[in-house]
């Protein structure tokens, strides 16, 4: 099970996606989430997770109906922040979906769960306890509840996984980098299967106030479902979302050998950094395009073979046009004009450290079903965002072979995944 041993043979392993688990504003579980996404539903509404009545932003995309005790012991759940509960629930669903058996030792099966804002709900609560009632009233679980690695740690503990277990945290790109890093672990032979994705729940007083101070959130409080409108002329920012999304990854050969249903392959991963600004993307688009090109090259494809892109689409004034430029730079203007683009954040909101994983899950299902989910609320494309084939408001049937999911994170982290359709014989 070591890199040295398995890489000796030359060709690297192809990596299959054999399971998907999600907790999201579009539903809990793969089927419900995909139905909502393909039907163009919005997961937005008024904030219920904290009293936002005095906040200038009172809307978000919450994962309604999530009950942790459906997925874990109630006692165990109490020792987890909401984000870690999402991670465990999504991982459990993904594992069940894949049919992969974890033996008693769980050796060689690992987990990489991306995260953006740590266990902020618990941290804010415990910090407040300390300020109001004194340091000796802080819970012994304050630190384990609030750190960013506990989504991964709890997945490992709950499912008995004892391979490499880490949290890759690159803000809004975390879910994408977690999947990319897990793909690498499988290619190197460091693990025989990986659960990879992201989990985040940042609909909290601190994060909503902080994002709003950055002027990145939509203020359309009277129209939550119409508030997230990437690429639209009237966009005014994103909605904070919360989610957990996990994919089961394993070598294609192993998936075939056990007769697993292969949803798609992860064929390429690319990452780069802007080294430009804390919050703003490099307006040239050059560093971001490098991540996109690296992923396409890693997949052994040419740019014109990419059929579809699930865009980052943060609905910011400068970000959305920059993203179209990135695709034009990476794919060439002609290929970019043909590529179908959707920003599913228009439906599920910006799920932060989970968003890349949720979008990769949607992209995997889009390839699988031959359906491109839409960018909703896209009534008038901003002239600065033209140049790609926007899939506006209604999903579209399409015969796709390769699709990308791109993520760009605060701090200048850029990452991209290329997914390819499973071969007919691998689907059951």
């Amino acid at each position: 099970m070591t890199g040295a041993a398995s890489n000796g043979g030359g060709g690297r392993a192809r990596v299959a996606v054999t399971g998907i688990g999600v907790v999201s504003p579009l539903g809990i579980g793969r089927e419900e989430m995909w139905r909502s996404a393909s039907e163009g539903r919005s997961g937005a509404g008024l904030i219920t997770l904290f009293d936002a009545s005095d906040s200038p932003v009172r809307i978000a995309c919450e994962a309604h109906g999530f009950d942790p005790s459906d997925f874990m012991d109630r006692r165990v759940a109490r020792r987890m922040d909401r984000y870690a509960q999402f991670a465990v629930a999504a991982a459990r669903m993904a594992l069940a979906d894949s049919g992969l058996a974890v033996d008693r030792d769980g050796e060689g099966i690992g987990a990489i769960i991306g995260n953006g804002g740590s266990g902020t709900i618990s941290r804010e609560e415990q910090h407040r306890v300390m300020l109001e009632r004194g340091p000796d009233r802080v819970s012994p679980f304050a630190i384990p509840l609030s750190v960013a690695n506990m989504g991964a740690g709890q997945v490992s503990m709950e499912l008995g996984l004892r391979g490499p277990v880490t949290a890759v945290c690159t803000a809004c790109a975390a879910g994408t980098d977690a999947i990319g890093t897990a793909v690498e672990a499988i290619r190197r032979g460091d693990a025989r299967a990986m659960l990879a994705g992201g989990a985040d729940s940042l609909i909290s007083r601190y994060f909503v106030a902080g994002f709003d101070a950055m002027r990145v959130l939509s203020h359309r409080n009277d129209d939550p479902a119409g508030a997230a409108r990437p690429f639209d002329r009237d966009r005014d920012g994103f909605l904070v979302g919360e989610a957990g999304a996990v994919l089961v990854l394993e070598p294609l050969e192993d998936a075939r050998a056990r007769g697993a249903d292969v949803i798609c392959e992860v064929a390429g991963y690319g990452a780069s950094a802007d080294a430009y600004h804390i919050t703003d993307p490099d307006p040239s688009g050059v560093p971001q395009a490098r991540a996109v090109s690296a992923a396409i090259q890693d997949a052994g494809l040419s740019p014109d073979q990419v059929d579809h892109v699930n865009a980052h689409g943060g609905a910011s004034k400068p970000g959305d046009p920059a993203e179209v430029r990135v695709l034009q730079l990476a794919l060439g203007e002609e290929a970019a004009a043909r590529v179908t683009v959707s920003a599913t954040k228009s439906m599920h909101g910006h799920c932060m450290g989970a968003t890349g994983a949720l979008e990769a899950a949607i992209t995997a299902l889009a390839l699988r079903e031959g359906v491109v989910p839409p960018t909703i609320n896209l009534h008038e494309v901003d002239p600065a965002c033209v140049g790609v084939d926007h899939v506006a408001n209604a999903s579209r049937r399409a015969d796709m072979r390769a699709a990308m999911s791109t993520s760009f994170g605060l701090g200048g982290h850029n990452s991209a995944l290329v997914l390819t359709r499973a071969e007919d014989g691998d689907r059951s």
Partner: protein
Amino acid sequence: MVVTGLGIVSPLGIGWEETWRAALAGRSGAGAITRFDASGLACRIACEVHGFEPEDFVDRRSARRMDRASQMAVAAGRLALDDAGLAITGDGARAGAVIATGNGGSESFEENHRALLERGAERSSPVMVPIMIVNMSAGHVSMQLGLRGPTTCVVTACASGNHAIADAVAAVQRGAADVMLAGGTEAGVTPFCMAGLDATRALSRRNDDPEGASRPYDSGRDGFVAAEGAGVLVLESLEHARDRGAQIVCELRGYGASADAYHLTDPEPSGRWQLAAMRQALATGGLAAEDVDYVNAHGTSTPAGDPVEVSAIRQLVGEERAPAVRVSSTKSMHGHGMGAAGGFETVLTALAIREGAIPPTINLGELDPACAGVDHVANEARRGPVRVALSNSFGFGGHNGVIALAAMEGG
């Protein structure tokens, strides 16, 4: 893979030279907490970094938008690059960074959250989110040093630094970068982090004897001493290092990662999965257990943790050889750097190989019988060649990360 540069900002000093001198002299970096008024806490001691001036490493304006964790990460990154004699030229697309942390911008979160509670949301600062999220140290290292290759942050509590090094090795080996900066940072000597760590009962409360408080393997140990700082290594392929005529510190041979899947804060008592990570680190490096002649142990000075690791080391090398394997926990001197621990300790392990000296476990007066069976380098540094060494880190949540380093053959 080779290590070509070391940068460290630690309670033992700023820069590897000062840190190394203090480590060989067996000095403690612990003292009463000065970063905030700790009089209301049960634990009032820590290993702080004294004399750190962010403006020595970043301009004042940029420094103001960074948490102390990011300032120290940028400082360690810059020191490491200088030590490597490496200039990032052109667009920096072939150089990246993996900078770990345990908790991100702790002090900034606490200050901003307090302000939010006291003054309401309208007075919120636009930097309150970016200044505290865990990835921002990696982001600032990238921005300040012009690195535009893969730049990520990995978080595995107290094992973060070693997992960052492992991910950076992977990035070079898959051809995504020629050079990677890797390590970790932490600045968690803050009211909430200290109160929270103390509530887990993991901290030493030897407030009247800070320098004697961190005492791994000693019968009188009662917990760890929290530390702050950053440790960063420059990693590159041997070929790339040779082409540019770099001085090579040592080889980075292998890495191992596993999970206990056992308990939130306690290690799995048989040490089986720590052992699995050490074995994997040797296997990925083409090394055998009998090659190991030094282990820079995780050794946090907690009653439960120390014996488990010693047992895992004994299982790794076998009972016959175990008494000859030198083990030290430098946390006895620099404290527990948490997200920075792997960075600190892998830097010191690399120096042990290059300099031919093993820094000691200080405060080891009376060896706990449960920790016996290996050659503890107690209280005084030991001179002599080190060819193959492991740096162990194990984190809350059951994350195990091990790095295997070796002397450069023929060098």
